[in-house]
C-alpha cells in the first residue's frame, strides 16, 4: 500500500474550499439581509401600500384644489384681487403714503421731546420733594423749597395733557399709515386664502414622500399585572399596519387601512397614544404578523361552527382577538356605569347634519338590561349585584291568592299561561311541580287585614270602564280584549312583559276577596311589589274585581289534589326541590331566608380558560369559550352527564339574545385596571343610572314618556293627549321634570301624589316608595335638567313686587289673556266640561320653578310639543300696549309674579 504522499501546507491549494465557503457566506449574508428586511418585516409591505394610498388620495385632493383654482370664475376673482393688490401697492407708493410716513416721523419727534421734558420735570419734582421734606424734618424754614415744589407741580400739570395730546396725534398718524398697509395685507391674505389649500396639500405630499418606514408602537402602563400583582408594561404595535385607523377619509379603504368606525366618538375619547388597541380588542399587541400571531386563531376549518357563532374552532391562546360585537365586552373594564356608553355623534354632513345620542355599546347595554331584568344575579353571584333586589314576587302569602291547580301548572310550564313571562322553564315533572306547590302553600302566611268591604254584586261593565280609565293598561296588557302584539315597557328588549297579561286572570285567582284586597292596597300584602296603590274606592275596587274575575275560566279544585298538597312527604320533597333549583334566588320563600345563591360566581367568567369549562357529553360543541357559552345559554342542560346534574332553567333565548348575553358574559372579568384609564364617574351620572333603574323597575314609562321611550298608555288617548299622563323627560325637547318643578314638591309628590288635575280619571298612583327611592328619582330628574343645586326659593310678595303682581293680574284677567278660560284657580273653576281644564294656578307656587315659568310662557310648544297651552308671546305685538308699556318680556315676568303670588303664602 503506497504511503500517502506528504504535501506541505504551503503547497496545498485551498482555493476550492475558500471559494465554496465564501460563496456560502455571501449567500447567507444575502439571505440574512433579505430575511431581515422583507420576510421578517411583513409590515413594510403594508406601510408602503398605505403610503401609496395616502399619496394618491392627497394627490387627488390636490388636483381637485387646483382644478377649483383654475375655474374661470375663480380666476377672474383672483385677477380682480391681483388688480386690487396692484392698486393698493400703488397707493402705498404714492405721495399720500410718503406724507403719512413723514408725518409719523414728525409727530414722533414732537412727542419724544415733550415726553422727555415731562419725565425730567417729574425727576426734578422728586428732588424738590426731597429737599423740602429734608428742610421740614430738620426744622428749617422750607418756604423756598415748597415754592420750588409747587412750581414743578404746576409745570407737570401743564405738560401732562400736552404729552397726551402729542401721543394721540402720533397714534392717529400711525393709524393712517397702518390703514394703507392693512389694505395691502388684506388683499394679500385674500389671495393667499385661495391658494392656501393647494399649498397645504403640497406640503403634505412632501411629508408623505419623505416619511420613513417604521414600527409604530404605544407603550401602556397600568393595564396588565404580573403574577406578583404589579403593573407591567404592555406594548401595542397595531398602528404599524392599521395606519388609517385614526384618520378621517379612509372609511372606504381596504381592511388594514380603514378608519375606525365612529372614530371621533371612540378614538376622540380614547386616543390611541394613550389607550392603544388591545385594551378593547385583546389579541397580541406586540405581534406584527396578523395571520395568527395577532389574532390567536388558526383560520377557519370548513366544518367549524366557529365563524357562524363569532369564533374560530382552533384557538392558540386563551384570549384571542375579539371581533364584532364581542369588542363591546371590554368597555366594562373601565366604565362601571352603562350611562357612559352613550356619546353624542354627528350624523350626516352639512345642512342636514344633526347630533344624536348613540349608544356605542348597544349589545352590552342590552345584555346588562337582560341580566338585570331577568334577575340572573338571583342565582349567580356577580360583583355589583350582590345586594340587588329579587326580581320575582314574594311567595310568602299565596295561599289565599292562587288556585292550587293553576300553581302546579304554572311551576311546570310558565309560558303556557303567560307567553311573555320572565319566569324560566325548569323542566320539572308534574309530581315535582306539585311538591313545590305543596311546600309553598303549606308555608304561606295569612294576609294582613285591609280596610274596605268587597261588594260581590258590583257591575263588571263599570269595572271595565275603570280598568280602561284609571291607568291599569299602563303596565298590564289584556291581549284577549285589547289588541297588542308586542311586549311593552322597558322589558320589551328581552321580549317580556313588565306585569302579567290579565287575559286569563280568573284562572289564577282563588278568591275574589283576595283580589279586592290586593287592588285596594297591594303593598300591604306584598311589601316588595312594584304594583302601586291606585287609591280606589271600595266601589271602584269591587267593580274592577268583578270585571277581572270574568277574564278566563275558574278552575275546579278536586279533593284529591287538596289532600295530596297536604301530604307531609310532598311538602318535604318540595322543600328539597326548591333548595336544589334555587327558586329563592328570585322569590322570597319562607324557610330559605338565609340560603346561599346556588350557581357559580360569574365575576371572572369572561376569563375562564377552556380547562375550566366542562363540555360533558356534548361532543358536537367546539372547544372554544364562545361556543361553550352559546350552547350553555341556548340549552342549559346540554353539558349535563350522568355524574353531573345541572340546575339552570331554560329561558328560551333566541340566537340573538344568546349572542347578546355572551358579550355581557365576556365582560365579567375581575381584572383591575389602573385608575388613569377609568372614567371618573360623576355624581350626575350615578344619579341618572340609579334613576333609570328605578324608572324601569316601577315601569314609569308605562304611562310617561321618559328620555324618548315609553308612554305606552298614550295610544289609548288618541286625539285626547291632554287627558293622558304628561311626558317627563324628553331628549330632543327641553321638557324635563327637573327643570319644571321644585325638588321639594317633587319629593313630596312622589311620596304621596296629590292630583294636579283631580277631574281626570287617570291618576298618578301611590307607589309607596322609600325615601331612598324617591330621592333617587328626584335626583335623576334634577340631574337630567343639568341642575347642580336642587333647591328653590320663591320669595314672598313684597312692596317691590306688588306693582308687577298687579300688572300680572290684569294680564291674566278676562279683558286680556283670559287665563281663567281654561285654568282652575283654587275654587274658581273655568266654564265648560272638565276635560278642557288646565292645572290649578294655586298649586304653582309650591310646585313650579320660577325660571321654568318664564321659559314656558315664552313658547309652550317648544317645551312640550303638542300641548294645548297656546303661545301668547310670539312677537313684539303679542302683548297689550297699555300694560307695562307693551314690553313683552316684562309682561311675562309680571305673569310669573302673579302666578307665584297665588295660593297659600
Amino acid at each position: 500500500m503506497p504511503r500517502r504522499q506528504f504535501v506541505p501546507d504551503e503547497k496545498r491549494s485551498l482555493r476550492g474550499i475558500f471559494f465554496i465557503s465564501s460563496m456560502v457566506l455571501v449567500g447567507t449574508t444575502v439571505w440574512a439581509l433579505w430575511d431581515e428586511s422583507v420576510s421578517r418585516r411583513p409590515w413594510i409591505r403594508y406601510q408602503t401600500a398605505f403610503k401609496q394610498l395616502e399619496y394618491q388620495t392627497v394627490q387627488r385632493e390636490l388636483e381637485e384644489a387646483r382644478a377649483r383654482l383654475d375655474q374661470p370664475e375663480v380666476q377672474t376673482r383672483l385677477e380682480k384681487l391681483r388688480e386690487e393688490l396692484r392698486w393698493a401697492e400703488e397707493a402705498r407708493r404714492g405721495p399720500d403714503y410718503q406724507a403719512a410716513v413723514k408725518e409719523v416721523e414728525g409727530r414722533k419727534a414732537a412727542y419724544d421731546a415733550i415726553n422727555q421734558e415731562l419725565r425730567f420735570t417729574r425727576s426734578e419734582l422728586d428732588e424738590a420733594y426731597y429737599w423740602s421734606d429734608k428742610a421740614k424734618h430738620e426744622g428749617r424754614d422750607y418756604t423756598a423749597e415748597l415754592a420750588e415744589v409747587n412750581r414743578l407741580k404746576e409745570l407737570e400739570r401743564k405738560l401732562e395733557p400736552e404729552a397726551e395730546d402729542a401721543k394721540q396725534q402720533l397714534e392717529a398718524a400711525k393709524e393712517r399709515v397702518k390703514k394703507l398697509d392693512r389694505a395691502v395685507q388684506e388683499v394679500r391674505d385674500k389671495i393667499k386664502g385661495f391658494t392656501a389649500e393647494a399649498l397645504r396639500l403640497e406640503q403634505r405630499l412632501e411629508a408623505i414622500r419623505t416619511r420613513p418606514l417604521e414600527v409604530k408602537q404605544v407603550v401602556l402602563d397600568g393595564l396588565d399585572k404580573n403574577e406578583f400583582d404589579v403593573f407591567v408594561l404592555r406594548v401595542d404595535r397595531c398602528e404599524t399596519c392599521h395606519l388609517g385607523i385614526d384618520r378621517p377619509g379612509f372609511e372606504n379603504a381596504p381592511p388594514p387601512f380603514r378608519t375606525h368606525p365612529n372614530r371621533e366618538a371612540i378614538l376622540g375619547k380614547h386616543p390611541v397614544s394613550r389607550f392603544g388597541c388591545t385594551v378593547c380588542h385583546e389579541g397580541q399587541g406586540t405581534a406584527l404578523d396578523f395571520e395568527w400571531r395577532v389574532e390567536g386563531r388558526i383560520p377557519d376549518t370548513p366544518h367549524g361552527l366557529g365563524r357562524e357563532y363569532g369564533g374560530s374552532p382552533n384557538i392558540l391562546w386563551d384570549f384571542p382577538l375579539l371581533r364584532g360585537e364581542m369588542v363591546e365586552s371590554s368597555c366594562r373594564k373601565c366604565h362601571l356605569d352603562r350611562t357612559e356608553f352613550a356619546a353624542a355623534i354627528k350624523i350626516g354632513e352639512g345642512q342636514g347634519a344633526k347630533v344624536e345620542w348613540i349608544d356605542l355599546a348597544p349589545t352590552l347595554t342590552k345584555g346588562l338590561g337582560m341580566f338585570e331584568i331577568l334577575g340572573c344575579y338571583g342565582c349567580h353571584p356577580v360583583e355589583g349585584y350582590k345586594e340587588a333586589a329579587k326580581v320575582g314576587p314574594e311567595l310568602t302569602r299565596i295561599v289565599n291568592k292562587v288556585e292550587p291547580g293553576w300553581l302546579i301548572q304554572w311551576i311546570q310550564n310558565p309560558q303556557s299561561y303567560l307567553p311573555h313571562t320572565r319566569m324560566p322553564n325548569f323542566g320539572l315533572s308534574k309530581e315535582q311541580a306539585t311538591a313545590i306547590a305543596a311546600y309553598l302553600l303549606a308555608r304561606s302566611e295569612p294576609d294582613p287585614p285591609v280596610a274596605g268591604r268587597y261588594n260581590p254584586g258590583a257591575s263588571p261593565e263599570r269595572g271595565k270602564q275603570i280598568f280602561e280609565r284609571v291607568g291599569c293598561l299602563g303596565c298590564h296588557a289584556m291581549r284577549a280584549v285589547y289588541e297588542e302584539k308586542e311586549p311593552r315597557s322597558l322589558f320589551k328588549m328581552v321580549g317580556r312583559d313588565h306585569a302579567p297579561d290579565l287575559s286569563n286572570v280568573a284562572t289564577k285567582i282563588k278568591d275574589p276577596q283576595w283580589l279586592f284586597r290586593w287592588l285596594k292596597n297591594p303593598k300591604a300584602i306584598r311589601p316588595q311589589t312594584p304594583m302601586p296603590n291606585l287609591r280606589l274606592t271600595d266601589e271602584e275596587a269591587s267593580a274592577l274585581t268583578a270585571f277581572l274575575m270574568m277574564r278566563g275560566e275558574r278552575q275546579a279544585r278536586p279533593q284529591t289534589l287538596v289532600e295530596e298538597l297536604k301530604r307531609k312527604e310532598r311538602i318535604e320533597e318540595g322543600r328539597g326541590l326548591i333548595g336544589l333549583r334555587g327558586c329563592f334566588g328570585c322569590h322570597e320563600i319562607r324557610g330559605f331566608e338565609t340560603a346561599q345563591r346556588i350557581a357559580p360566581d360569574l365575576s371572572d367568567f369572561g376569563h375562564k380558560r377552556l380547562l375550566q369549562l366542562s363540555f360533558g357529553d356534548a361532543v358536537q360543541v367546539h372547544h372554544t369559550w364562545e361556543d361553550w357559552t352559546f350552547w350553555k345559554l341556548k340549552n342549559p342542560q346540554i353539558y349535563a352527564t350522568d355524574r353531573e346534574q345541572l340546575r339552570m332553567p331554560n329561558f328560551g333565548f333566541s340566537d340573538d339574545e344568546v349572542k347578546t348575553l355572551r358579550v355581557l358574559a365576556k365582560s365579567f372579568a375581575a381584572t383591575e385596571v389602573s385608575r388613569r384609564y377609568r372614567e371618573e364617574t360623576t355624581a350626575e351620572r350615578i344619579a341618572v343610572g340609579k334613576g333609570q333603574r328605578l324608572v324601569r323597575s316601577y315601569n314609569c314609562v308605562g304611562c310617561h314618556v321618559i328620555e324618548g321611550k315609553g308612554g305606552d298608555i298614550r295610544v289609548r288617548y288618541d286625539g285626547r293627549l291632554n287627558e293622558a299622563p304628561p311626558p317627563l323627560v324628553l331628549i330632543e325637547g327641553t321638557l324635563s321634570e327637573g327643570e319644571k318643578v321644585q325638588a321639594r314638591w317633587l319629593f313630596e309628590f312622589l311620596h304621596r301624589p296629590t292630583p294636579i288635575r283631580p277631574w281626570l280619571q287617570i291618576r298618578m298612583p301611590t307607589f309607596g316608595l322609600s325615601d331612598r327611592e324617591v330621592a333617587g328619582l328626584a335626583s335623576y330628574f334634577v340631574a337630567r335638567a343639568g341642575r347642580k343645586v336642587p333647591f328653590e326659593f320663591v320669595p314672598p310678595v313684597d312692596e317691590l313686587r306688588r306693582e308687577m303682581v298687579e300688572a300680572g293680574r290684569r294680564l291674566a284677567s278676562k279683558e286680556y289673556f283670559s287665563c281663567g278660560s281654561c285654568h282652575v284657580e283654587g275654587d274658581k273653576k273655568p266654564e265648560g266640561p272638565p276635560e278642557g281644564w288646565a292645572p290649578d294656578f294655586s298649586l304653582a307656587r309650591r310646585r313650579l320653578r320660577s325660571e321654568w315659568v318664564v321659559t314656558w310662557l315664552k313658547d309652550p310648544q317648544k317645551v312640550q310639543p303638542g300641548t294645548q297651552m297656546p303661545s301668547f308671546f310670539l312677537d313684539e305685538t303679542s302683548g297689550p300696549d297699555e300694560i307695562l308699556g307693551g314690553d313683552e318680556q316684562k309682561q311675562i315676568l309680571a305673569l310669573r309674579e302673579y302666578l307665584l303670588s297665588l295660593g297659600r303664602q
Partner: protein
Amino acid sequence: MRKNVTIVVLVGFGLGLWALASGPADSAAGGAITGVVKFAGDPPAVKEIPPTKDKQVCGKGPIFDESLVVDKASKGIQWAVVSVEGAKGKGESKGATFDQQGCTFRPHVLVTPPGKVTVLNSDGILHNFHSHGKKNPALNQAQPGFRKKMEVEFKQAEIFKVTCDAHPWMTGWIVVSENPYVAVTDQKGGFKIENVPPGTYSLEIWHETLGPTKQQVTVKAGETVTVALELKK
C-alpha cells in the same frame, strides 16, 4: 264688396292677434270644470252644538256641527274640496282670511296658496289658533280678545285641521294648495274651477268626514266640463 271683405279679414285678424296676446291664462285658452258633489244616502240630520262656555258670545247664534253638511233637497255636500291634480299653475297669495266668529271658524274650509293667512278674532274673547299640520309646523297661538288680527304662515301644500282648545267644538280646515285649480263646494254642493289648461287630469275630491276620492276628467280649451260626483259614508 271687396273692400268689405278686406275689412272683415282685417278685423278678424286683429281679433285673433288680441286673443293671442291675452295669453294662455285667458278663458279662451283654458276650460272650466263645474259640477255638484252629492251625498249617496239619506242626508244626515243637522246637529246643533250647545256651547259649554263663554255663552254670552258663543250662544248668540246657533252653532252647527259642520263635519258633514248635506243640503236636504239637492243632497249636495257643502265644504268638500275639489282639486285638479297635476294641472300646472301657481296661485298668487291674495291674503286669505280666517275668522273666528260666533265661536266657529269662518269659513269652515279655507283654501289658500302657500303664504300668509290673516286670522281674525271677531268675538273679542280668548281663542287659540291650533293647527295640526304635519308638513307645516304645528302652531298653537293664542288670540286673546284684544288681539283682533294676527298673521300666520303656511309654506307647504297640505290639508290640515285647525282647532281652538278654549272651545273644543270649534273645528276648521285649511287647504294649502300650490296650484290655483281648487274649489270648495257651496251649500248646494256646487263648484266651478275656471281657466284650467286643457288636458286630462285626475280630479281629487276631499271631505273631512267622507275622505278622499278621485275621478278622471278631460278639459278642452274654451269648453266647460260638467261632472257629477257622489260620496258615500
